[in-house]
């Protein structure tokens, strides 16, 4: 986990740790821009604590962001330059921020026209990220103590070369990863429950490297996708339902004939690892 993420998580823990007194000066800033043939949009979002919503915007738009924040403690960041978009809130220098009531809210809508490279970092945030239908080429998501839902409800028209997810003390649910069209998925989990739902429209093979600390990992895999799991861990029981052991790995019965294959390498410490099989067209229901 990067030091920046740790710092965000630390700041976020401070934010939620103690109540604060006094009134806030709530500001709202909205920034939007039309799509004008940009070859790529690099989106850099840093968000300490609060609620974060990211979703696809209408065609013809490049982005639209609305930040609601406590102006006594924070400054908004809405900068666009040379195909690079920076969004978020920054705490003011010298201002000690305490209390959940300072938590901000950031609503982001990204247009479906420009290819995207997303770098998203947030601390103690409740995040709802819908990336379905967007043209995503690269994505890095780092969370601290958060509750995050990541969805790809529509296929990604681009090949997503790397989807890198770092999870601190968090609950992460990633749905529709089949739609994400990911080549390489990396999940670095600290403490918490992680659900990776690989349902969706598969158009290529995927490799997933998962490093889990303490907590449970659930892999939801649609039937018909060949699954190969290599597990290395300590006190992490593995529920290998529907898999057969061959050499050092576990394989699904249709591995050799499957049109698309998912290779998962898991390194886990404490916790449990479960595999759930679902029908191909079904997205796993929430537990």
């Amino acid at each position, binding site marked *: 986990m990067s030091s920046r993420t740790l710092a965000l998580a630390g700041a976020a823990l401070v934010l939620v740790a103690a109540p604060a007194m006094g009134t806030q000066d709530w500001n709202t800033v909205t*920034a939007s821009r039309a799509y004008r043939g940009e070859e790529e949009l690099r989106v850099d979002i840093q968000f300490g604590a609060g609620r974060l919503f990211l979703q696809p915007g209408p065609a013809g738009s490049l982005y639209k962001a609305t930040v609601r924040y406590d102006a006594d403690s924070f400054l908004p960041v809405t900068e666009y330059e*040379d195909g690079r978009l920076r969004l978020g809130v920054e705490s003011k220098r010298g201002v000690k921020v305490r209390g959940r009531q300072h938590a901000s809210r950031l609503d982001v809508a990204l247009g479906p026209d420009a290819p995207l490279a997303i770098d998203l970092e947030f601390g103690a945030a409740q995040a709802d990220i819908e990336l379905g239908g967007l043209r995503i080429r690269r994505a890095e998501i780092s969370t601290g103590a958060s509750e995050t839902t990541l969805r790809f409800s529509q296929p990604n028209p681009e090949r997503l070369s790397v989807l890198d997810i770092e999870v601190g003390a968090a609950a992460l649910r990633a749905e529709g990863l089949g739609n994400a069209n990911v080549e390489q998925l990396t999940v670095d989990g600290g403490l918490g429950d992680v659900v990776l739902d690989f349902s969706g429209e598969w158009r290529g093979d995927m490799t997933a490297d998962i490093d889990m600390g303490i907590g449970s990992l659930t892999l939801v895999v649609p039937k018909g996708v060949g699954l190969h799991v290599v597990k290395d861990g300590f006190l992490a029981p593995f529920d290998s339902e529907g898999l057969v052991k061959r050499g050092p790995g576990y394989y699904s019965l249709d591995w050799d004939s499957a049109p698309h294959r998912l290779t998962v390498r898991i390194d886990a410490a404490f916790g449990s690892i479960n595999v759930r099989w679902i029908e191909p067209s079904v997205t796993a229901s929430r537990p």
Partner: protein
Amino acid sequence: MRRSSSASDTTSRRAARLVLAALLASGVVAADGHAQAQPRAGETGVVSSQISISRNEAALVLELAGGDSLAVQLREGQVRLNGREIGTYSRGDALDRAWRELLNRVIEVGDDELKRALVEWEAPAGNEAGAQLDRVLEEVIGRGAVEAAALPAGKPGDTVSILEARIAELQQTIEELQRQAEPDFDRIHELRREIEREVAREMARNRRARSAPGFLHHVGSGFSKLFSLVVTYAVLVALGFAAVFFGRRYLEGVADTARHATLRSGLVGLATLFLLVPAFILGALALAISVVGIPALVLWVPLFPAAAGAALVFGYLGVAHAAGESLAERRFEGGEWFKRANSYYYMLTGVGLLLALFAASFVFEMAGPWLGFIRGILLFLAVVLTVAVAAIGLGAVMVSRAGTRPVTGPTVDDSIVSPPPVEEESDV
């Protein structure tokens, strides 16, 4: 409020920069500077928008196709259009309410609706600044030309003079910002001087310290450390006597194990020393994860370190006992040995033996810096010995199960040697 006004300053400065860029560029260069995204010919739409609503400010900044910009700002009683004050308002008056209502409405909508809402906006009747804003919005959004709208009452020749005035105003703002930054430099200089003074004082103290100590200083230092060592010795001996009194069997078990399985005890103790912290953490985690273990966690957190500390001390005393016993065996023979053969005596001599290197080191310290290297070597050996004793002692405690299952030496055939039974003295 200062903080909120600071946030508003940021927004207003951004708006001013945007407007300045647009004016200087005269519609030739796009304000975002994106080389790939050139304005499309004949476009009149809104390229980007920024809306800011707070207690002290309600602002709208538009970047239009062709590179033009429009900035409308109601802030701190002033109505500004592209940075130029065109009127005033009061918080909560008709213009303020109407403008905020407009911005609150368009903050949620798309570009097309934004344009329509801005064009359709009607200023409150009788407000000159509002009427001008209304007119400007209709003209600019309708035509996509900002300059004419921003200067509705001016002559074409006024453009340069207004531009120069605006540049002068921005330069003044920059100078003000630089002036605000100057106290920081003063503070840095002040801190530097303070650090220099502190360094000078520290150097003087060091000079005095170097010149002052003489023979008496070293003797005094050595004596104070020897006194500390004597106190340590007394505490350890007292603990040892208590251990002998209350659990001699177990202490002797540990001592026997340390004597007869020294290497094994040392290795086990070393491994235990390394594993103590991980075992503590893992145990706590395991108890925390399991629901039934959570009550035990309350005991685990204080008792584990206490038990580890007790095992270390008990092991150290066991080794001291063994050392004292071994010394007695070498020094005394026959009846004299029997007289000296009691655990209290072993403890007195053993602890003294283990601390002897420290004592020697402190004695050499009294001699001053000339024998400093010998003092250093002795101190190093003393520390190494102490760590080794701690490891062996802890290992002996582990191997002998706290003295309940001691490892003793090879048994002697009673038929060959049958020594008379010896009752150890139980007092010193």
